[in-house]
């Protein structure tokens, strides 16, 4: 399972989300590779799940993966819930 977290320049906020997602995956017991990058690089970085805040999530559609749009990047409950749903969707496809 490959998860890519994106933000405008791929430095700060996507990195924070990546660290939280890694924790959430460990809690859920899911094996996954999580990384972060800027919007330009997202298309060249094939992933199963793309994560972004809701103000940029539309830029991630059409890349071929399940898009997780977060309305609050620091809300760990929201992140976990949406991530779990996306993981189920990816697993159903496989």
């Amino acid at each position, binding site marked *: 399972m490959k998860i890519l977290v994106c*933000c*405008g*320049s*791929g*430095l*700060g*906020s996507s*990195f*924070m989300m990546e*660290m939280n997602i890694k924790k959430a995956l460990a809690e859920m017991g899911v094996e996954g590779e999580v990384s*972060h*990058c*800027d*919007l*330009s690089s997202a298309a060249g970085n094939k992933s199963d799940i793309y994560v972004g*805040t*809701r*103000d*940029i999530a*539309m*830029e991630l559609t059409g890349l071929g993966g399940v898009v997780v749009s*977060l*309305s*609050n*990047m*620091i809300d760990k409950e929201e992140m976990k819930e949406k991530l779990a749903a996306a993981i189920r969707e990816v697993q159903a496809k496989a």
Partner: protein
Amino acid sequence: MLKFIMDILSVPAVLIGIVSFIGLVAQKKSTSDTIKGTIKTVMGVLVLSGGAGLAVGAITHFGTMFQQGFGITGVVPHNEAIVGMALKEYGTQTAYIMAFGMVANVLIARFTPLKFIFLTGHHTLYMACMIGIILTVGGLTGIEMIAVGAVVLGFIMALFPAIAHPVMKKITGSDDVAFGHFGTVGYVFAAWIGKIAGNKAQTTEDIHFPQGLTFLRDSSIAISLVMLVLFLIVAVACGPLYVETELSGGQHFLVFAFLQAITFAAGVYIILAGVRLILAEIVPAFTGIATSLVPNAKPAIDCPVVYPYAPNAVLIGFLSSFVGGILGMGILLALDTPVNPIPIILPSVVPHFFCGATAGVFANATGGLRGCVLGAMAHGLLITFLPLLLMPVMGDLGFANTTFSDADFCVVGTILGNVIGALQ
């Protein structure tokens, strides 16, 4: 042997690698993770300097063409470009100040009421670099320079989130998360303008604002487009003869302008990739260590943390700030005289888009739609004028065609540079 140790302790790439190594060991990572992480960090510094060469080359061409076309100095403020340029000479200072500055931040959060841990690693890096430049230009060296730099960095890492926090609580509706991005003075200024000139009754989020501009949030695209406009203007101002004989080696002047604009964006893209590699191990280590040592501190997070709270304010904010930048440039052009020449600060896309957007969200929280427009525009004017105060205290780098862009860099640098100047 001594030479070997001195070389290790004075090469930025190695030094930053050691910081990352210590962080990995402190977290008790496996041997393979430690080796991998350390090598990636060293590589990050080298990638960054590769990108800096590209970006600096393009921006220097721009400066030459601006000078030739208009007879004045043009400056495009851009953190990545100036840091890339400065790390060659000030890399050692940067590495030491960054490492000890993070320690100072933890100590300040632990023992003073400023309970904030600054987690925006790239801004910690850029600020460490800026402080290293200012202190070195001011005549400080060695341990004195590192100690002063680290204390200043650690202090502002805790102070600026505290300054932003009252408005931050309004934006997020909670007290749990703090704001960590070195444009704070600009955002608080925008929020203040929003408060006095705005009207909270109508927020930006009540209106329907076209989201078609969201693609500009992709910073590489935004940089390319705006630099393209700027390069085409200076190319036309210079005329084909000058460009083709002096700069492009015969390439058509418009083709040259087009390629240089995107070369600048490409350079920044590589610099960002380098920064990402540098921070990949340092930020998680710092986050883990700091939050375990100071569990009641609030994490201060990069500016996009506020964007989802008001996506319309993000777009309106960056457009308004950009308009402010154009107005500010017009004012500088009007003030510039042959007797008293001043550098012209051009509207640079990254600060206006990222900081302008943030200013918009802050000003919307205090003054609604009208506050957002006016506050972000005031922010755009502010970050156009502030670099003029910073550049004189930056030594040779003050004459570069780029400089630090976000408000806090200019404010801290100007104060620090002038205080040191006054003390000596």
